């Protein structure tokens, strides 16, 4: 433990935000919502994994990835492939020309399971793949780009192209990937039906628990020396480099962590929704994920979760009744956040509410809190290219 005390790892204000979030996700929402809505919130929360990773990459590291959908998709597909194989037993698929392979392969006249599907008969392999495959892809991209000092805008455009490439590939290779429809009709996990109400509840809590694991990892990174170097790097890359640090390694590391989080999120989505499709991989969903993060506040891991929840809930509630107006509203929200609130709702909280909360806590516990070292300042991050 490189921290001298718990307080250094989790200052008072952060602890408070964690507790409030836990209260909201573990107590308030399960009590207030019926199982269908809770399942929906669980699906929204799967995007929160991506947003938390983006806070680390973009907010802290200053590297904006427009390809997080790739990692989300890879994680989601890894688990979906396992679930699909489980659902395609020879008995279930007896009416096919080749029983025992996924239905879409049969429709596309493929008679043999492709080699890269084989390992997905094992759940252990699939679960490892959920985290490892996105990380490896992120590592390769990261090493190739950051060692050559590609950053900023160019990194954003290249990751966006990779998202486009993967979508075209998935859609084009219908027989191997399920094409536009994706991998559908997933039923059970090790014989456990994932569509019952009970399963929805359990998966929701699993999702929240995993999210908290990711949040704690993110908190650990951001409070550690690595996090401080990332922030320093974002501001003055050259100075950090001249101080003897290998910038690229830090960027690759944080990009891989973001990818791993996104992969877990994708897998949790697959479990809760019962399918995975290329519509969560491409350019548009990837940008939406960035926007969740921007609305929540690009410097706040907890803010990112609220950003995801707020935008998704607004999209569902408002979008259901006024689909036309919603797109206008969403566009205006993005423009407004960028122009007026560069640090999102977390920035609002830090500037207007947090000082009062601090004073209140001082009065309650009778001792002044530690000085806040990472106040969200409205600086211009991510401007380097």
């Amino acid at each position: 433990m490189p921290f001298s005390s718990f307080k250094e790892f989790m200052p008072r204000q952060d602890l408070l935000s964690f507790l409030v979030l836990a209260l909201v996700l573990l107590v308030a929402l399960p009590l207030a919502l019926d199982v269908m809505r809770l399942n929906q919130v669980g699906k929204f929360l799967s995007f929160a994994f991506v947003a938390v990773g983006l806070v680390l990459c973009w907010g802290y590291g200053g590297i904006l990835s427009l390809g997080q959908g790739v990692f989300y998709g890879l994680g989601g597909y890894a688990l979906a492939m396992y679930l699909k194989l489980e659902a395609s037993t020879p008995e279930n698929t007896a009416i096919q020309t080749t029983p025992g392979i996924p239905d879409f392969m049969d429709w596309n006249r493929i008679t043999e399971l492709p080699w890269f599907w084989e390992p997905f008969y094992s759940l252990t392999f699939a679960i490892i793949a959920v985290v490892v495959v996105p990380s490896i892809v992120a590592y390769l991209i990261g090493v190739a780009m950051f060692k050559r000092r590609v950053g900023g805008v160019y990194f954003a455009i290249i990751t966006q192209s990779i998202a486009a490439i993967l979508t075209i590939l998935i859609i084009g290779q219908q027989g191997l990937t399920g094409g536009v429809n994706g991998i559908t009709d997933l039923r059970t996990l090790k014989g456990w039906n994932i569509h019952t109400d009970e399963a929805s509840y359990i998966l929701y809590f699993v999702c929240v628990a995993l999210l908290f694991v990711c949040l704690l990892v993110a908190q650990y990174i951001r409070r550690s020396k690595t996090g401080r170097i990332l922030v320093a790097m974002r501001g003055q890359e050259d100075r950090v480099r001249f101080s003897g640090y290998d910038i690229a390694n830090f960027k690759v590391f944080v990009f891989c962590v973001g990818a791993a989080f996104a992969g877990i999120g994708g897998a949790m989505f697959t479990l809760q929704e019962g399918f995975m499709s290329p519509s969560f991989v491409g350019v548009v969903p990837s940008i939406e994920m960035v926007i969740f993060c921007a609305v929540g506040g690009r410097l706040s891991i907890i803010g990112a979760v609220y950003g995801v929840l707020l935008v998704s809930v607004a999209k569902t509630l408002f979008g259901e009744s006024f689909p036309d107006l919603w797109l206008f509203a969403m566009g205006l929200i993005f423009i407004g956040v960028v122009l007026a609130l560069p640090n999102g709702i977390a920035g609002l909280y830090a500037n207007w509410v947090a000082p009062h909360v601090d004073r209140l806590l001082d009065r309650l516990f009778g001792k002044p809190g530690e000085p806040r070292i990472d106040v969200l300042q409205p600086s211009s991050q991510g401007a380097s290219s």
Partner: protein
Amino acid sequence: MFSDFSAAELTAIFAMQGFAGLILFAVFVLMALGLAIIFGQMGVINMAHGEFMILGAYVTYMTSNLFANHFPELFGSYFLFAIVLAFFAAALLGVIVEWGLIRFLYHRPLDTLLATWGLSLILQQAYRSIFGAREVGVVIPDWLMGSYQLTDMIEVPINGLFVMALAVLATVTVAVLMYRSRWGKQVRAVVQNRDMAGAVGINTARVDRLTFALGCGIAGVAGSAFTMIGSTGPSSGQLYIVDTFLVVVFGGAGSLFGTVASAFSISQSQSIMEFFMGGSMAKVLTLLVVVIILMFRPQGLFSLKVRR
């Protein structure tokens, strides 16, 4: 994959696909020119560039309807009016957007990406509300229909030739404007150092606004040209945005020649591979090669040497 074809067939295939690639090349050039100015010169990531193109396409559609209903005898020439109208409509929208949005974000390039993405959502929905969700096409005037038969295996569509001529004209105009005019000199000065340019008496705000408007206007012309080749829907713009950015980045942002060269190489490889392995795989392979080359040469093929 070549063994199934005889040498003569291969030549014809390459010629034919090469020519189809030339049309794609012209489209890429038109799309990328505007972006080369906005992104390459100004550094603004305009995710709404596709929507500016679609605006040009819708203006062309409206012009063709107007001519068909009110001046049927002039219908043959509507397209020339449409191009001009498309240019000015998109440029006007560009001025408004620059004034209301972009000018606050010159020091935060990554934020322009988010803000213009919001703008593109708004524009898409606006098109959907005004023109409906269905794709619309225009009636191509008679003199642009048909094709020249060069040999018995190679034929050349006239509307393709027209789009190519348009691309050449637009490229030459932009090149002259940027590298031969006083205004182009000012643009390049502002781009290199906004504060210094302002200090020597250039009205940087005005230059920025006009540059952005020019880029958007060319996008409008590109959209006008699209209507010759395919139909237009509210979200068609998003289909092109990745390609367009890749063309500009691959060529080296800031280099007009690089943009043209990269549009040529991307469109030709896409078009020729398409014949042998189908559209989607050709696209995947082309984009993948471009991305891999960019990893080795991140500044693009023909970037200007600048001291950072």
